[in-house]
C-alpha cells in the first residue's frame, strides 16, 4: 500500500510545501488506488485521470516557480456527481442525465479548481441524492469499505466510501436530509453540513432547494475544516447564500479544550429504535466530551419527532418541481424520439424510463402535497412544523452552545436490507433531518465501532446558524480523545485489516 494514500490533506499539503512529494505523485497514487479497489467499492461514477494529472502538473509547476499557493493546492478531492463540472459527465446517478455534460462549473467546483485542488472524478450517489444507501443509483450501489456487504450510507455514499477506501483524502458532498452526515457516520468519516446559505448551491443539481447544502467530507477534522474554508462563503450567483464572513473553522479545528462549552444532549434523539451499540459508543463519547471540559446537560426538543413527517412533505414538494425540468427537451436521455410521437409523449416516456422508483415516488408524493385542496393540509402544515423545529433549536441554543445526538439510529445496514421498505430507509435520517429543516450547521464525527457488528458509529454535533466553527471545536476534541484511546485514527483499523488479508 502506497503510504501517500493514507495521509490527510493537511499532511500532504505540508509534504508538498517541503518539497518532499509532488502533487503528480499524490494524484497518481490516488488514481492507482482507484484502479485497484473500484471493482469492489464502486465509489466513483467517473474518473477524470487526464484532467486530474494535468491540474497536478500545473500546481507542481507553479510551486516550482515559487508562486504563492493555497493550503490545499495539489491535494486530490472527489466530487459528488450532483455538482456541475464542465466537460465531465454529471449524471446525479440517474439514467435521465446519463449523457449530460454541463457547459459550466458549479461554484463549489470552481472554488476547488481556483484553490488548486485536483478533482479526481465524480462519486456515486442515490439518484438525485434521494436515498440513504446509494442503492438508488441507476449505476449500481457503492459498497462500504468496512464491510462490502453493507451500504456506505447515502446519498453521498460514494464520497464517504472513497475516503475510507483511501482513494482520496478529501471529498465533497451535499446534505438535504443527512446525505453528508449519515454516510460519514456509517463509514467512520467526518461530514459537515454547513449552515444553510454558508456554501453556494449554484451548480449543485437541486433536490430540495430549501434544504440542500454542499459540505466537506474528510478522514480528519482539520482536513474537513480546510476544505470547508475553500468552498464556503457568499456567492452572488446563489440568492440564498449568506453575505457574511465564514466562521473561522480552521482555527476551531485546532482547539481541543472544551472548557466552558455547554453541550446539550437531545432527549428526543435516542432510546427506542436506536441500536444498543450506537447508544453505547455515543454515551462513551459524552463522557469524553465531559472529560475535555464541556458542561453536559439534557435538552428537550419536543417537536423533533415531527421532523421526519414534515421533511417527507416539504422535500418531495420541492423535488416534484425541481425535477420537472428533466423533460428531454433541452438535454438528457430522450425516449421515443422517432418523429411519430408528440412532444408530450416523448416527455412522458423519457421521464418514465429515465427516473428510478424512488425519484418517481417522491415526485408523486410532492405533486400530491402541492395539489390544490391538499396544499394547506400537507405543505402548509409541514411548514408550520418547520417553524416549530426552528423554535426548538432557538430555545435550546439559549441554554447550550451546541447540541449532540447519535448521527444515525443504527450502523450501516446490509445491501438490499431496506431496499424494499422505503419507510425503514427514511428512518436512517431521523437524527439529521431537523438541522436541514432549521438550516443550522451540523456534522458527524466517528466515535468508534459498534460492539454489535464492528461497524462505525457517528456522533452528530449541531450548532446555531453561522456558528459552524463550534462543530469543529467539538470534533477536534473528540478526535484527540479517541486517538489517544485507539492509538491512532479509527480508519487505521481498516488498514490493519487490509494488510492482514
Amino acid at each position, binding site marked *: 500500500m502506497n503510504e501517500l494514500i493514507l495521509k490527510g490533506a493537511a499532511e500532504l499539503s505540508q509534504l508538498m510545501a517541503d518539497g518532499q512529494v509532488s502533487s503528480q505523485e499524490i494524484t497518481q497514487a490516488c488514481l492507482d488506488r482507484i484502479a485497484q479497489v473500484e471493482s469492489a467499492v464502486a465509489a466513483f461514477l467517473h474518473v477524470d485521470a487526464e484532467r486530474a494529472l494535468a491540474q497536478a502538473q500545473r500546481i507542481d509547476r507553479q510551486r516550482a516557480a515559487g508562486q504563492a499557493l493555497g493550503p490545499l493546492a495539489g491535494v486530490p478531492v472527489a466530487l459528488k456527481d450532483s455538482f456541475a463540472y464542465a466537460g465531465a459527465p454529471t449524471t446525479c446517478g440517474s439514467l435521465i442525465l446519463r449523457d449530460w455534460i454541463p457547459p459550466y462549473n458549479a461554484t463549489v467546483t470552481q472554488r476547488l479548481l481556483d484553490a488548486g485542488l485536483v478533482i479526481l472524478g465524480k462519486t456515486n450517489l442515490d439518484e438525485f441524492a434521494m436515498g440513504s444507501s446509494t442503492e438508488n443509483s441507476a449505476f449500481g450501489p457503492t459498497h462500504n469499505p468496512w464491510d462490502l456487504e453493507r451500504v456506505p450510507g447515502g446519498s453521498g455514499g460514494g464520497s464517504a466510501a472513497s475516503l475510507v477506501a483511501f482513494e482520496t483524502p478529501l471529498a465533497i458532498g451535499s446534505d438535504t436530509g443527512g446525505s453528508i452526515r449519515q454516510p460519514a457516520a456509517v463509514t467512520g468519516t467526518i461530514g459537515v453540513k454547513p449552515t444553510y446559505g454558508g456554501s453556494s448551491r449554484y451548480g449543485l443539481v437541486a433536490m430540495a432547494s430549501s434544504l440542500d447544502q454542499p459540505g466537506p467530507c474528510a478522514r480528519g477534522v482539520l482536513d474537513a475544516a480546510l476544505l470547508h474554508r475553500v468552498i464556503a462563503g457568499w456567492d452572488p450567483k446563489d*440568492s440564498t447564500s449568506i453575505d457574511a464572513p465564514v466562521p473561522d473553522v480552521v482555527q476551531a479545528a485546532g482547539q481541543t479544550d472544551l472548557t466552558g462549552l455547554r453541550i446539550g444532549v437531545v432527549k428526543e434523539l435516542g432510546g427506542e429504535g436506536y441500536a444498543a451499540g450506537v447508544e453505547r459508543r455515543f454515551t462513551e463519547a459524552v463522557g469524553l466530551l465531559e472529560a475535555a471540559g464541556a458542561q453536559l446537560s439534557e435538552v428537550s426538543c419536543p417537536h423533533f419527532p415531527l421532523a421526519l413527517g414534515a421533511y417527507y412533505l416539504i422535500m418531495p414538494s420541492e423535488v416534484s418541481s425541481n425535477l420537472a425540468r428533466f423533460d428531454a427537451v*433541452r438535454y438528457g436521455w430522450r425516449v421515443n424520439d422517432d418523429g411519430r410521437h408528440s412532444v408530450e409523449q416523448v416527455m412522458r416516456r423519457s421521464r418514465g424510463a429515465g427516473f428510478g422508483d424512488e425519484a418517481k415516488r417522491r415526485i408523486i408524493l410532492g405533486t400530491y402535497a402541492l395539489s390544490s385542496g391538499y396544499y394547506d393540509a400537507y405543505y402548509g402544515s409541514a411548514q408550520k412544523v418547520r417553524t416549530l423545529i426552528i423554535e426548538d433549536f432557538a430555545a435550546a441554543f439559549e441554554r447550550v452552545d451546541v447540541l449532540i445526538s447519535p448521527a444515525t439510529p443504527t450502523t450501516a445496514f446490509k445491501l438490499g436490507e431496506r431496499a424494499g421498505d422505503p419507510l425503514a430507509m427514511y428512518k436512517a435520517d431521523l437524527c439529521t433531518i431537523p438541522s436541514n429543516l432549521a438550516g443550522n450547521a451540523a456534522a458527524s464525527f466517528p466515535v468508534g465501532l459498534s460492539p454489535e457488528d464492528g461497524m462505525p458509529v457517528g456522533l452528530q454535533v449541531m450548532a446555531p446558524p453561522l456558528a459552524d466553527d463550534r462543530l469543529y471545536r467539538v470534533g477536534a476534541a473528540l478526535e484527540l480523545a479517541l486517538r489517544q484511546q485507539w492509538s491512532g485514527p479509527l480508519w487505521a483499523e481498516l488498514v490493519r485489516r487490509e494488510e492482514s488479508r
Partner: protein
Amino acid sequence: MSPAERLLDFDQAMALFDPVLGLEVHVELNTRSKMFCGCSTAFGAEPNSQTCPVCLGLPGSLPVLNRRAVESAVRIGLALNCSIAQWCRFARKNYFYPDMPKDFQTSQYDEPICQGGQVTVEVSGQPYLIEIERAHMEEDAGKLVHVGVTGRIQGADHSLLDYNRAGVPLIEIVTKPVTGTGAQAPQVARAYVAYLRDLLRGLGVSDVRMEQGSLRCDANVSLMPKGASQLGTRTETKNVNSLRSIERALRYEIRRQAAVLVDGGRVKQETRHWHEDVGLTSPGRSKEQAEDYRYFPEPDLAPIAPSPEWVERLRRDLPEAPDQRVARLRLEWGFSEAEMRDVTGGGALDRVAQTVAAGATPTAARKWWTTELARWANQAGVELDDVPMTPDQVAEVQALIDRGVINDKLARRVFEAVLAGQGAPDEVVRSLGLAVVSDGAALSQAVQRAIAAQPEAAQSIRQGKVQAVGALIGQVMKDLRGQADAATVRQLILDELT
C-alpha cells in the same frame, strides 16, 4: 379553425346583456438584462444567442433577481395607485411545456408586489373607473416556432425553440371585473390598454409595442342578463395584438356569447384565440378541467422587502400621469376639448407633442396627425406610432408650407411620397418637382394663358367684378398642376387686369 359561429347583432346583444370585462395585461420590461440572469433582452437577435445556464434552466443553475425589474414593478404599481407590499415572495407555477425551460414559471401568486389600484379612462367624454386587482412580477417563456403547413402546433412537422425571450421580466396587471360599461365595453377595454400604454411609456419601463409582444392583453369577457347580479361564464381571448384587435375581439366575443345564450346554450369557460385576419375567435385550451399549477413559494429566491423610504422616493420621482398630461397639454396648445379628444382618441398625443417640439404649431401638428396620417394608418391597419414618418418630418413639411415652398395640396402629395418610402420631405419635393412655381416669368406666362383662355372672366374683373378672379386662379393652378401659391397668383391676375 372551427367554422364561423353564429353571432347575435351587437345592439341586440346589448339590449339583452351587460358585458363584464376582465383585462390581464402583460408588460415586458425594457431592463437591459433578464429577470434572473445577465442575458440581454434585446428583441430580434439570432435564436438562442441570448441564453445562459440560468435562463435555459440547466441542472444546478439558480436565479438571481434583477433589482431594476423590481424597481420598475414598484413604479408601475405606484402609477396605478396600488399599494406596494412591504414583503412578498416569488412563487413557482408548475406546468409542463417545452417553452418553459424549468417546466415551472417563476411568478408571484398570493403575495403580489402591487395590489388594489385604480385608474380612470375616458370614452366619448365619459369617465370609467377601472379597478386594478394586482400587478405582479414574473418571467416570460421562450418561443415555439411550429414548422409545417399550418404554422400552428396542430399539424406541425416539428417545432423549433428560441429561448431568447425566456426569462425576460414581465409585469402582469390584472383588473377587477369591470362592470357598467354597457355597449361601450369594447371601447373601454381599448381605452384602458391605450391608457396603460401611455402610462408605461411615460414611466420609461417598457417599449410597449403590441406587435412585438412587449404589451400583450388577454381579454376576458362574460355576459350577464340585464338586471342580473350573478356573473356569467367568461372566456379569455388571447393573441390580441393591437388596440384595434382588443375592440374587435371583444365585440366578436360579446356577439358570439350572446348568440350561445339566446339559443339556450351554455358558454364554455375556455381560452380563445383571436384571428385578426378573419376577425374571429376560435377555441384553444379548454379550462373546464382547470389546470392545477401547484403554486408554492420559490425557495431559490429571497423574499423581497421594498423599504418604505425607497418606495416613497420612487413615488416622488414618478412622471406626470397621462390624464394630467393631457389636461396640461390641452391648455398649453389652446385646444378645445373636442380637438383634444381627436388627438388622444386617435393615439396621436405623443406624435403631436413631438411634432410641436420639432417646431410645428400645435394646430398644424394636430391637423396632419389626425387627418392625413391617421387615414394612412387606418388603411394600412397599423398604429399611428408605426406610421413610417417621424414627427420631425411632419414638422419639416409644415415648415416647407410656411416658407411657401409648397402649399397644402402639394403637402398631401409629399406625405404620400414620404409614407411610400420615397425619401425625406425635401428630397421628395426635389425629386418629384413638387415645389410651387415661384419663377415670376413662368407665373406671368401662365396668367397670360389663363386670361386668353377665359376672356369673359377677364372682362368681368376689368369691369370691377373681382369675385370672378377665382375662375382664373383655378385655370392657372390647373395649368401649373397645382404647384403655385394661390395668393401670389391672385395678386398677379389682379395686377394685370385692374
